[in-house]
């Protein structure tokens, strides 16, 4: 009779490791059921931000706070949730009113955290982040009616159930 060896347990351990390494690459998916899980991982595509200038509503004036409008495309087959919006490090707010306004927009942005703005799977959505911007009395007179472009970093997480 052939002596007993530990070959089979080692093979099983290897299979577990293979599955585990596959799961690490997954962006947002869920599988359920019984038996061996051989679900293929999806690669999450990055969100992109588009031009939302036409969707803005005028709400800024010296001494006021206003909203940021962001056009977000989620190319993934799962929904996401925007959790933070913040001015890019070193980011400078510009306008469509020229140099005088750009030199003194008076616009500042406060980082918004703890947001829960849902963006459905495979869609482009225009979202509003209230009270994210404010305008000081330093805003140049030429900034009246200006559309401001605010460089931002938007953080999102998967929102799959």
């Amino acid at each position: 009779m052939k002596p007993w060896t530990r070959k089979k347990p080692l093979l099983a351990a290897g299979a577990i490791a293979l599955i585990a390494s596959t799961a690490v690459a997954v962006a947002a998916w869920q599988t359920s059921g019984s038996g061996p899980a051989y679900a293929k991982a999806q690669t999450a595509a990055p969100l992109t931000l588009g031009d939302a200038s036409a969707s803005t509503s005028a709400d800024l004036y010296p001494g006021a706070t206003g909203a940021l409008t962001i056009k977000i495309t989620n190319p993934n087959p799962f929904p996401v949730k925007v959790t933070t919006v913040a001015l890019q490090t070193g980011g400078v707010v510009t306008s469509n009113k020229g140099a005088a306004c750009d030199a003194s927009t008076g616009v500042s942005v406060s980082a918004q955290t703890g947001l829960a703005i849902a963006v459905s799977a495979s869609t482009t959505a225009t979202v509003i982040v209230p009270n994210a911007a404010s305008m000081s009395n330093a805003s140049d007179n030429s900034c009246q009616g200006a559309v401001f472009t605010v460089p931002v970093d938007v953080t999102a997480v998967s929102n799959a159930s």
Partner: protein
Amino acid sequence: MLFSPATVSASWAATARGSAYNRAKTMPTILPAPTATLAGSAKVKIGWGAASYTEGGTIVAYTVRRYPAGGGAGTIRAGCNGTISALTCTENNVATGGWAYAVTPVAGKWSGSESARSATVVVP
């Protein structure tokens, strides 16, 4: 069986870099004339209605100017000089003569168009 039963979910988070947008209001371009009435010796009281941004929202600060009835450069004296966060003011030490007043809405460095001028008030 490797996972039984298996429910596997992974979290995903990413940062997207791009632009957000917002837009500023505009000051009104047409304002009705204020009223101007004698309020005592060498004093004139000026009153005006609240102005609004073109997109809505009340403007709370104004400047006032006084012009010679026959035309000429504007000026203003104590009581109505500087930025006024009210809808009336009384100018003091107004010189004898006929005068007309106008108001301009302001917000920080922003200013709107000057109003039409008031009817002439004569300071004896």
